[in-house]
């Protein structure tokens, strides 16, 4: 059963130096507060996994938490580049960043394989692209029935997955709705999981489109109101688009970023 924990405590217990860590949330419900708590906790040498590394991963990378990035699309959505990610890749600042790069379909299937307890997934993809030359986590595979050539991708098995959800009940059952992305797969693929929620309620009344993750498949739940800002939490708050634009200016400059980083410490 999931333990109800404080956010700082939960992050310090569940995310350790050197871990493979997946923070998921596809534009919606991005676990930003949890990501910034990882920076505060001073974690190092993380292998960061995320389909769409965006602002919070730019922050983690700029803060020097990451050794490696496993991803499929790294940008500031609707705005432009992730400057800290680019600085790490283009100039090795603050440290070189190893990449394991896939397509969205590949990453989604890697999580799904992990969630299903399989070592790999099969998809139609990658044929003819240069992605095949730059990752060791894909391989050709033949259909044993038709002989067709397809692509196998290695399962993702993060040490810990972190997601944000709208709410939990007192037993630690979690409910999220709206665009629910790849969060169930990320949690199921991981050895440990932490879910931050907007609020704890008595009863999770059913909602159209809701995904429910029972307490017994989770490790910990932490209340973190506004924990997805500047992304949005459907039914709670909208995306803070100005922050995304503001981040573009802060992150362009190492000094401005360093100032932001210092301000993050309590």
């Amino acid at each position: 059963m999931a333990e109800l924990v404080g956010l700082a405590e939960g992050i310090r217990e569940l995310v350790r130096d050197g871990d493979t860590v997946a923070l998921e949330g596809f534009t919606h419900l991005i676990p930003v507060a949890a990501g910034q708590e990882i920076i505060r906790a001073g974690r190092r040498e993380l292998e960061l996994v995320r389909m769409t590394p965006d602002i919070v991963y730019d922050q983690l990378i700029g803060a020097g938490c990451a050794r490696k990035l496993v991803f499929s699309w790294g940008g500031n959505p609707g705005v432009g580049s992730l400057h800290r990610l680019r600085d790490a890749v283009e100039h090795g600042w603050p440290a070189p960043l190893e990449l394991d790069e896939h397509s969205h379909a590949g990453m989604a299937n890697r999580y799904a394989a992990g969630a299903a307890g399989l070592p790999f997934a099969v998809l139609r993809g990658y044929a003819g692209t240069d992605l095949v030359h730059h990752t060791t986590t894909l391989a050709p595979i033949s259909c044993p029935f038709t002989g067709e050539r397809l692509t196998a991708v290695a399962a993702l098995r993060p040490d810990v997955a972190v997601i944000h959800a709208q709410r939990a009940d007192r037993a630690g059952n979690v409910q999220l709705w709206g665009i629910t992305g790849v969060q169930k797969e990320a949690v199921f693929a991981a050895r440990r999981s932490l879910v931050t929620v907007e609020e704890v309620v008595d009863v999770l009344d059913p909602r159209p489109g809701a995904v429910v993750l029972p307490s017994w498949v989770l490790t910990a739940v932490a209340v973190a109101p506004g924990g997805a800002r500047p992304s949005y939490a459907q039914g709670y708050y909208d995306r803070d688009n100005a922050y995304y634009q503001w981040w573009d200016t802060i992150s362009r400059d190492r000094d401005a970023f360093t100032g932001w980083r210092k301000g993050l410490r309590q």
Partner: protein
Amino acid sequence: MSWTAEEMMTVAAARALAGHTSCFVGIGAPSTAANLARRLHAPGLALVYESGTIGARPRTLPLSIGDGELATTADAVVSVPEVFNYWLQAGRIDVGFLAAAQLDRFANINTTVIGPDYRHPTLRLPGAGGAPEIAASCREVFILVRHSRRTFVEAVDFVTSVGYGDGPGARQRLGLRGRGPVLVVTDLGVLEPDPASCELTLTRVHPGVEVADVRAATGWELAVAGPVTETEPPTEDELALLRALTEGPVP
């Protein structure tokens, strides 16, 4: 009424969606074009976004492919693995819209890195996202991109998404099941693959654009169709609806 080249590009792309059932949409110009098409001539066009929103009817232009407006107005919201496996990969989507940082004469697309060395790029781009499988699996692909020698290059630095590979027969050899890019709409005109050579060929210029302008903005020796036609200028209706879309909420 006057219009910008960007507006002409979006209108031309929206028109090309006529007669289609479903469209896999990326954010930016493709999303604008697809939403314009729904307001113009294709009210039943099903918009599918990689965030898993199926049949979204956004009342305002979404800020991202995962905008809450998409979830709220969709027929169904499915998981990201499902949208890629059951909807895209299975070949259920008519048209996929792609953008490009670099594009070659066979409509191969780079959105990964600029520079010859992947490990040490001159410019790190966002990467693949959903594009490789959109390029592989949609029945047809439209590419929307501004015309410049920086974008229309002799050889892309990295093949992120496959157009026609190295030419005729390549898609079949690679096992790609969609037809591939059938239309490249730019701010200058329209390119289409030559049926025999698969090479992108200028077939239309937008009003006020000369073939020479397009040649000058293309980094390879551009093939030009026998008769190059001129795009119909945007109608007042098209422009009014487009501007209402890009400038704010539509009731």
